């Protein structure tokens, strides 16, 4: 995993693009260490961070690196769900943003020649994009023509959100309202995939109920699963002990330093607060 420079850095917004209901925030970061897939940054607008709904935001907000362009642009996929994300969605090219990162523990490669299934829900698809990039690059570097490309399964609430699927290549989409792709839950697509061939490693990020379904599904079939969790965070670097989820067998894990990517086997079940905005 990449270490974060010690100290938040004042970066410049390169631009912000609409992606249906989401925004793709592109931040110019030529000197930042390249993040590993699944790592995140704590972001805050340099100006006007505060004074929104309920006199918030006050603390920085966590966002998964969605993509990095070598030579220095990092992208983040944002959904406006509250005062922090709203302020970030307002940023325009040239404005300044504080960034601390890359932080946390990301995904690790599938073992035993298992094929990777990347399962995303809503804005939780973000870390899967950079993970797909790395998996595809790895496969082509190794020229392992035998290795299957990762399977991409994405679930969304509606058409506006399903537009986010454009962030990944060759995605199969499910929507709750049937407006795009499979009418139903993305976990139904996962079940079908696992039935077809259980020799897989599952990588999932999305709302808590989706993650819990993935955990249960994989546990039942003894399929390894890595879950990219979310949690309310104050610091992102292990200082506040605020971002915990219960660990199987007792005690707690800090999502920011023990995760955000956590082996599903470490969890008894996925905490209701540990998912992405639904």
């Amino acid at each position, binding site marked *: 995993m990449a*270490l*974060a*420079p*010690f*100290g*938040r850095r004042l970066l410049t917004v390169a631009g912000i693009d609409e992606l249906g209901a989401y925004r793709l925030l592109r931040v110019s970061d030529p000197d930042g260490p390249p993040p590993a897939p699944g790592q995140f940054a704590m972001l*805050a607008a340099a100006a006007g961070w*505060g004074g929104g709904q*309920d*006199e*918030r*935001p*006050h*603390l*920085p907000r966590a966002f998964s690196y969605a993509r990095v362009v070598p030579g220095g642009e990092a992208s983040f996929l944002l959904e406006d769900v509250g005062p922090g994300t709203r302020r970030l969605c307002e940023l325009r090219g040239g404005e300044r943003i*504080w960034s*601390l990162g890359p*932080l946390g523990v990301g995904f690790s490669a599938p073992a035993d020649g298992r094929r990777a299934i990347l399962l995303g829900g809503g804005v939780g698809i973000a870390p899967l994009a950079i993970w797909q990039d790395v998996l595809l690059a790895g496969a082509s570097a190794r020229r392992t023509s035998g290795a299957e490309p990762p399977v991409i399964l994405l679930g969304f609430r509606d058409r506006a959100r399903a537009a986010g699927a454009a962030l990944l290549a060759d995605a199969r989409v499910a929507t709750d309202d049937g407006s795009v792709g499979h009418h139903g839950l993305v976990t139904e697509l996962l079940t079908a995939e696992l039935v077809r061939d259980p020799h897989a490693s599952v990588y999932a990020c999305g709302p808590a109920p989706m993650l819990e379904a993935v955990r249960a599904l994989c546990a039942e079939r003894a399929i390894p699963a890595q879950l990219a969790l979310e*949690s*309310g*965070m*104050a*610091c992102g*670097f*292990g*200082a*506040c*002990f*605020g*971002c*915990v*989820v*219960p660990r199987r067998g*007792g*005690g*707690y894990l*800090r999502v920011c*330093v023990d995760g955000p990517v956590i082996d599903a086997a470490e969890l008894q079940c996925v*905490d*209701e*607060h540990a998912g992405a905005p639904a």
Partner: protein
Amino acid sequence: MSVPFCGLELAHPIINASGTFDLLAARSAFGEEALRAGFPFAAFVSKTITLQARAGNPPPRLFEAPAGLINSIGLPNKGLEGYLAEDLPAISSVLGACAVPLITNVMGSDAAEIATLLERCEERTEIAAIELNVSCPNVKTGLDIGSDPAALESVVRGVRRATRKPLIVKLTPNTADVAACAHAAEAAGADAVSLINTLRAMALAPPGRGGQGRTAARPWLGGGTGGLSGAAIRPVALAQVAAVAASVAIPIVGMGGVQSAAHARDLLNAGATLVAVGTESFRDPTAGARIARGLC
């Protein structure tokens, strides 16, 4: 501008507030070299250590408040022996390399428990001073043991002999008369007092998150209530530090909502010898260094 404090010589007057900077986690996140090179604090205060290990409170543990933060962490720690055996050597190896003294913060529910904590710390040369957190709720009254001056004086008097290291009593702000509490701590032999700890606070679940439907809303924090910190409490911290400064002669560690050198200077002007930075480190992990630089 080296600062003398209870026999220690600190490089500057800025330290961290207990429980707001995990040195070992920071080392993993930023690397040991960078952490040493830019260590933000002139002394490092551990999070609160208790006799028995604690897992802490169930989540959610955080609620963002207007210009502040409510936390209900619940003092997770490995317990005294786990701390001494595992964390202390690791922490002091980092601190030793940058010549930053360690202040260990401890809490116990009665004088006997506190005495044990102090005695075991006394044996360890890595520990330069001890901060005693008296915001522990009394099991009978539910109030902080530090909220009543007479009770506080008797507890501190009872444990004072357990250590010759400098003893800093970290007062609770949830009291009618913090100056009387500080005075009681001084009378009982404390070498310094520190304040303010968080203000007792609460949040209900926001609408749409198991919150306000037809039935009564439930508390958001897993621990029920929590403590308010950050900018929001700065004016309260300044008033309490000024009141304490008017009533004791021992040095004061002032804290509460410090975000900038100007805020630190206010606390110093109000009578503090050192200033601790807590919540602001969450927003800016090197805030301590920025503030110390700004004081020059």
